[in-house]
Structure formats: C-alpha cells, structure tokens
C-alpha cells in the first residue's frame, strides 16, 4: 500500500520566525531570529523581526513577513501621529491596546502576525505583552513568545526565567532560550538579534549561532 503525504503548511509557517520578550528588574529584553526564508529555502540571514517604535518601546512581529512589514509601518505611523497630537510618547500599555484593536479590525481577514510588545513606561516600569493574530492579549509578568519555535521556547523559558533578573543576566537568559529553541526548528534561526532596554540605554547585540 502506498501512502502519499501532502504536507500543507499554515500561512504562519510560510516564512518562519521566532520572537521572545522577557521582563527583568527595571529592564526588558526582546529577541528574534534573523532568518528570511520562503518555505524550505533560506533567502537571507539578516532580517530581524523586531522593530523599534520609540526610545523604550519595541515590537516583535513574527509570522508572515509581508504582513510584519506592513503592520510595523502602520504602527509607526499611528505612534508618530499620537506623538504629534498629544506631544508625548505613547506608553507601552496604550500601544499594546492599540495593536490589539488594529488586529481585531481585521477579524475576518487578519494580518498574519503574532505581535510581542516590550517596553519601559515613563516610570521605567517593565511592560511586556503578546497577542494572537486577532488581538487577544496576554499581559505577562515573566515572558511572552511567538513564532514557529514557540513550543520549544516555552520549555526553555519556563526553566531559565526567574524574577528580578539584571540586564546582563536577562540578556543571557533570553539568548539561551531563543537559541536552544530555534536550533530545534527547521524554519527559524540563522542568527539572532537581542535588544535589552534599560532606563538609561538600549543595548542591541547580534548573536553568532548555528547557520542552519
């Protein structure tokens, strides 16, 4: 008997990506892999899925990369307009609500992205949130993650995360979590970029990883 398998990939697995955000003591970190691929083929290895929205606010947009690019442009536009009208920065909590709202507007024809938001509010309190592609939010105290290696990242994050991590420790924890997880995923990986946001500065580091 001959069995023929036809493997249909979901649209969220067309490009492949992994993003994770974690909270520490007065700091947050957000990291993503840097693979740009189409189905099984890798086109480039310097495509980060994390965009900087303002000084201390970052958004990660894993999923279908055309929608990540379109949606990040939409978000930047909205934040810029807010800044012009209100003459102040949009806080992470408000930004998160806006993202959820924008996604739900397309409830029956959604953007294929699963956003993660990481930032420090104006009192330098850490804020992270994540949501699904139609805007169902999760406000976590520890970490949020999304992408094709999400299950692998969950295991790593649960084991490694602990409260009140310093910026250096947070960097180590988030990097090890992301790398170990995407090493087990065929369609994400090929390099990683990590942003650690503290009240004084944002440190961006690129990780040397397995190039496969």
């Amino acid at each position, binding site marked *: 008997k001959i069995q023929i398998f036809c493997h249909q990939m979901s649209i969220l697995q*067309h*490009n492949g990506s992994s993003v994770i955000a974690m909270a520490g003591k007065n700091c947050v970190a957000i990291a993503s892999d840097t693979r*740009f691929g*189409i189905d099984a*083929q890798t*086109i*480039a290895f310097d*495509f980060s899925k994390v965009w900087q929205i303002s000084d201390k606010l970052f958004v990660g947009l894993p999923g*279908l*990369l*055309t*929608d990540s*690019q*379109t949606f990040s*442009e939409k978000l930047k536009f909205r934040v810029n307009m807010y800044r012009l009208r209100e003459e102040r920065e949009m806080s992470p909590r408000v930004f998160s609500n806006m993202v959820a709202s924008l996604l739900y507007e397309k409830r029956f*024809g959604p953007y294929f992205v699963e956003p993660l938001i990481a930032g420090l509010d104006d009192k330098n309190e850490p804020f992270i949130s994540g949501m699904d592609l139609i805007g169902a939010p999760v406000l976590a105290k520890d970490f949020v993650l999304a992408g094709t290696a999400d299950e692998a990242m969950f295991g790593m994050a649960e084991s490694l995360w602990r409260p009140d991590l310093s910026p250096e420790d947070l960097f180590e924890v988030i990097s090890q979590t992301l790398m170990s997880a995407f090493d087990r995923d065929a369609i994400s990986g090929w390099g990683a970029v990590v942003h650690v946001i503290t009240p004084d500065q944002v440190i961006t580091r690129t990780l040397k990883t397995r190039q496969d």
Partner: protein
Amino acid sequence: MDSLIGITGKDFVIFIADTAQARSILKMKGDEDKIMVVDESKMFAMAGDTGDRTTFCEYVKRNLKLYEIRSGLTLSTHAAAHWTRRALADALRQNPYQTNLLLGGWDEESGASLYYLDYLGSMHKMPFAIQGYASNFVLSIFDRYYKEDLTVAEGLELAKLCIAELNRRFLLAQPDWAIKVIKKGENGKASLEVIVPASK
C-alpha cells in the same frame, strides 16, 4: 521558469535574466526582455505570471515617473523599493500580483542597492539575490564566491559561473540570457549599460 540573478558590487548592480517566455511545455518566445529599466538609475527584473509582471512593473514605472514630474525629484532605490512593496502588499488581499521581483539601482545616498521582493510583498535589501528555481542551484555559489566591493568584471565572471552551473544541472535551463548593468558613471550620476541584449 524565470531565472533572475542580481549582483551588487562597488557602485554597480548587474541583472542577469533568462529570455524564455513559456506557456506550459511550449517556449513561446526566446528573446523576452525581463529586465525593465525604470530610469537610468534603477531597473526591475521581473519573474512570474506574464501579464502581471509586465503590467505591474509598468504601473510602478509610470508612478515613479509621475512622482518625478510632480516633484522634480527622482526617487532613491530605497524609496522606489518601499513604494513597490506597498503596492504589492495593498493588492495582496484584493487582486494579488503573481510576480516576484528584483529591484536594483545606484544613487548618491546609498550607492548600489538591490532589493528582493516576493509576490506577497516581503522585501529585503541584499547584496545578491536570485528569483526562480535558479536559486536552488546558484545561492550556494554566491555564498562561496561572493565578496564585498566586486568590480564589474568580477561580477560578470561570477555570473558566468552561475549560468554554467544552471546549464549543467537545471532541467529547464535556458540557453540565452540578457545582462544589464547600472553603475556610477563618469559624471557621478547613474548610467545604464546593456551588456547582452535580450533580442539578438
């Protein structure tokens, strides 16, 4: 299947495209020019559904020209690529264009740049890029031999390697290729040179 190769080097972008126009198993035309010149500083290499690719690229070309007429400014490659990406992304959920593109050009601000755009509207700036089945054969050749700041001659040597590999191993390899270069001319502006024309 369309094979398009783009290479950037020191102040130039080379595009190499096969010249076959197919319908199912029939080769309709052997001298199709798949490299559309937008203006003397940028060009498209177009792959995909025949009607869509020429229509879409004409549409982009005309709009970029309109912008130039209205504002007196020629858009940079970066701006043109983002405009194109947005056009593809906006059309995606209504009447998608089945066309994969490479956009390459030279300008004062960023030198030579090459953008890979797929039909969904994902865009990425890359030093070299390939569309079509050719990518399966040729990406690894670039990984091995490509380096920063190639000269035009070195770029063309690399192109020869790629074409030789395709002719040897690709089932649907085409004998004829068109090659165009946009580079920084003597007067400091971009200039286009047709190295191998599509129709002979």
